């Protein structure tokens, strides 16, 4: 088999060669820009690099103009140590500790091969966190699937869950939360988002930059194979003169064991002070790592591609540059430290190879078999990609959707009907217990999990001495976002913020994963623009900066887009995790106090969805001032130790919230609808800025005073019963609703096993 490699010399001498730029996803003007930058045609290796780095996925070309708002509207805060633009943002949590966290999507691969797609999604986000110098300490998995009873959901969900568990468990990272939402809009396009949190000391923060002329560039971890090179195979088939390349895999397979070694090995070289700059290999593989490291550092790099350890010898240089083989990292190391670096890799059985060095030429030069195949200014690859101002417009159907308010839907008007409605909602797939899923995840490993599912937020101890820790929650109600994307993004933030506060943490910073349809559709682009604007405005008002995130476009089946799904993750800090507030009823005789104001807000609610299959109207109103006040009450109550439980109210309203609090520890309560209030609205409305807390008789005064001080309405609505007592709702139209815990448990627990077990 002979093949000719397209060199820089070839490119200069044969300007007329036609190149398959369109097949690689480049537009004619983008191709022309590359020619202008290089003042010649690109070599096929250069074309490969530009095409992948200028793709939507890597360059954010459709979203960039909007995402700028997260930087422009950054609230005043000294908590941000590293902001947007790095692999992940870093937040100061006090006492010299820093935390980094980020959420990313792996939607499309998980639809094709659920197990491996989800597994490699976890692998990728963990490497992002690792590359900041942090030890990964927990993961979360916000998931969206099609209808629960659809056969394809039956194919996708068990595989995704097994993949997340298989990879995360084997890595030794506790899974401390996530989401599972079913909605037909995700039928042909499930969402698999993965979040990772890492912790480090301030002085351990590392950045992706190649500094110091003469320093060595080391590629370490798994060998490079032909994974994820989809598009470039057109180049491969062109450059082979006879015979074809070996077949390239359609999906990537993860090796969590290798990743575990990579984590330990990386932390050891970082702590030994052997690393000048570091970068994980994710999308666009070596192309991305070398061009980003070079442009963030001295500006130049010389790479000898022949030195890359290969799993598959038939790979062409273009493919090696683009391969997305998992479990690889790239480090910049001083020559006098390279032996120590390689020794640590050897101790962990991790392959490592010096593939190049840092230069000050301002060029990224890559050679192959002694010839130069890439010679480009690295910034033009990594940072100067195209930027689109995609057209967007409020969809024609938006008004009609908002006008279709749920007021005409039949509501229950008797205690018996309310009882049936509660049981029906409790058993509905979105509200039912997620234990079938979460019991497949290790939540104990590392020994620092203070709260995990089904609590409102995951709480992780960071410092064993002081008890300092963090709380994290991710949320998004896609139905609300569909009704109004601006408000929907704010509601997602508000819910995650509230969840974190419910555990007693002070909300500090935000990450997000913006899952949308095609940016080429002006309707979708409008949803996106509105969601970003809404999130940025709300982050500014709540004082929680966006530290990073991810955009996933093209989530649609045919031309039907998913519900806009801006998943928002909020991280909060807890000064002493021993003071965290759990969600379940505990003590007989504690009083049940409702915080916040309930309005008749049922558009987009779980009730409208489950009972009437209805989506229309305007989502619950956003009141960020009220959210902030509520959060202050919840964190102060935790700090002062004056509440015994707290749970935020969201999907399913007060009724669902009480059920969850009762089932948590198997302790019931008697709760009354306040006189004069509408029982249905009281129990099922999804008004925001609300929570339920329990408090001992002695502390009631303190809690009511605290709420009054912050202007949060607080009403005593009932009392906790003894262990095993029923959940009783009184004053419900013509009587009481008695819900034995065994019956509630059966309703909540049976749904997912029956569907997927």
């Amino acid at each position, binding site marked *: 088999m002979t093949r000719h490699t397209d060199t820089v010399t070839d490119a200069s001498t044969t300007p007329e060669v036609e190149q398959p730029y369109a097949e690689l996803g480049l537009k004619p003007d983008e191709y022309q820009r590359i020619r202008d930058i290089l003042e010649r045609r690109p070599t096929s290796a250069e074309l490969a690099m530009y095409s992948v780095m200028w793709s939507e996925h890597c360059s954010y070309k459709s979203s960039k103009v909007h995402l700028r708002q997260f930087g422009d509207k950054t609230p005043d805060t000294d908590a941000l140590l590293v902001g947007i633009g790095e692999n992940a943002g870093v937040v100061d949590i006090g006492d010299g500790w820093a935390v980094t966290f980020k959420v990313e999507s792996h939607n499309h691969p998980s639809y094709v091969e659920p197990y491996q797609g989800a597994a490699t999604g976890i692998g990728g986000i963990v490497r992002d966190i690792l590359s900041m110098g942090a030890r990964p300490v927990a993961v979360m998995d916000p998931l969206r699937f099609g209808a629960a009873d659809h056969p394809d959901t039956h194919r996708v969900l068990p595989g995704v869950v097994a993949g997340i568990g298989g990879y995360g468990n084997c890595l030794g990272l506790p899974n401390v939360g996530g989401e599972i939402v079913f909605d037909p809009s995700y039928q042909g396009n499930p969402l698999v988002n993965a979040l990772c949190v890492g912790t480090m000391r301030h002085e351990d923060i590392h950045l992706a930059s190649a500094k110091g002329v003469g320093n060595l560039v080391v590629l370490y971890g798994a060998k490079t194979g032909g994974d994820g090179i989809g598009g470039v195979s057109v180049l491969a088939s062109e450059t082979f003169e006879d015979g074809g390349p*070996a077949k390239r895999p*359609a999906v990537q397979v993860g090796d969590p064991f290798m990743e575990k070694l990579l984590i330990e090995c990386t932390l050891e070289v970082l702590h030994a002070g052997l690393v000048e700059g570091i970068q994980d290999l994710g999308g666009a593989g070596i192309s991305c790592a070398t061009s980003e490291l070079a442009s963030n550092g001295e500006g130049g790099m010389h790479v000898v591609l022949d030195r890359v350890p290969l799993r598959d010898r038939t790979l062409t240089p273009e493919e090696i540059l683009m391969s997305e083989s998992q479990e690889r990292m790239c480090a910049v190391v001083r020559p006098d430290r390279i032996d120590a670096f390689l020794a640590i890799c050897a101790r962990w059985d991790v392959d490592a190879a010096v593939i190049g060095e840092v230069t000050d030429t301002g060029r990224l030069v890559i050679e192959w078999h002694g010839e130069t195949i890439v010679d480009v200014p690295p910034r033009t690859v990594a940072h100067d990609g195209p930027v689109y101002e995609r057209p967007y417009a409020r969809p024609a159907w938006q008004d009609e959707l908002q006008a279709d308010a749920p007021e005409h839907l039949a509501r229950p008007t008797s205690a018996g009907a309310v009882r049936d409605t509660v049981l029906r909602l409790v058993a509905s797939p979105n509200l039912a217990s997620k234990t079938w899923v979460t019991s497949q995840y290790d939540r104990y490993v590392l020994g620092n999990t203070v709260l995990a599912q089904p609590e409102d937020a995951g709480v992780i101890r960071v410092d064993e001495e002081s008890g300092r820790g963090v709380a994290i929650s991710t949320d998004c109600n896609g139905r609300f976002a569909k009704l109004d994307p601006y408000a929907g993004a704010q509601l997602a933030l508000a819910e995650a913020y509230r969840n974190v506060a419910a555990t007693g943490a002070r909300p500090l910073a935000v990450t997000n994963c913006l899952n949308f349809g095609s940016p080429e559709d002006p309707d979708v682009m409008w949803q996106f623009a509105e969601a970003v604007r809404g999130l940025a405005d709300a982050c500014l008002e709540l004082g929680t900066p966006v530290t990073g995130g991810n955009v996933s476009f093209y989530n649609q089946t045919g031309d039907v887009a998913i519900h806009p799904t801006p998943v928002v993750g909020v991280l909060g800090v807890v000064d002493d995790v021993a003071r965290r507030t759990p969600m379940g009823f505990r003590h007989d005789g504690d009083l049940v106090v409702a915080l916040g104001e309930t309005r008749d807000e049922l558009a987009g609610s779980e009730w409208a969805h489950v009972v009437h299959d209805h989506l229309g109207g305007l989502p619950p109103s956003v009141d960020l001032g009220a959210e902030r006040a509520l959060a202050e009450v919840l964190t102060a109550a935790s700090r002062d130790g004056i509440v015994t439980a707290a749970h935020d109210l969201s999907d399913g309203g007060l009724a669902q919230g009480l059920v969850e609090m009762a089932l948590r520890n198997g302790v019931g309560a008697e709760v009354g609808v306040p006189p004069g209030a509408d029982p249905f609205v009281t129990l099922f409305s999804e008004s925001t800025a609300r929570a339920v807390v329990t408090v001992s008789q002695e502390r009631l005064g303190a809690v009511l005073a605290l709420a009054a001080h912050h202007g949060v309405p607080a009403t005593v609505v009932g009392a906790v019963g003894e262990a095993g007592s029923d959940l009783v709702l009184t004053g419900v139209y013509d009587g009481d609703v008695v819900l034995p815990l065994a019956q509630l448990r059966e309703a909540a627990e049976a749904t997912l096993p029956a569907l997927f077990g």
Partner: protein
Amino acid sequence: MARVVVDVMLKPEILDPQGKAVEGALGRLGLAGVAGVRQGKTFTLELDGELDESRLATLHELAGSLLSNPVIEDYAIREVTA
């Protein structure tokens, strides 16, 4: 009574971390010259009666969907003496 074996192997281009681990261990434990190891699965089916055309067709269909994942695996069916 027929006995049929369905062999399921990862496609050659797909990473096989298990095979890699076994390869390393065999070498360390003294088996020289191992150039590669791939791990696969087998399903041994006991069938009542003979494996006629129509059942073989059904089996092919299920081998390519249930027993193997065509995105990453290949399968082969062989009849063995029971």
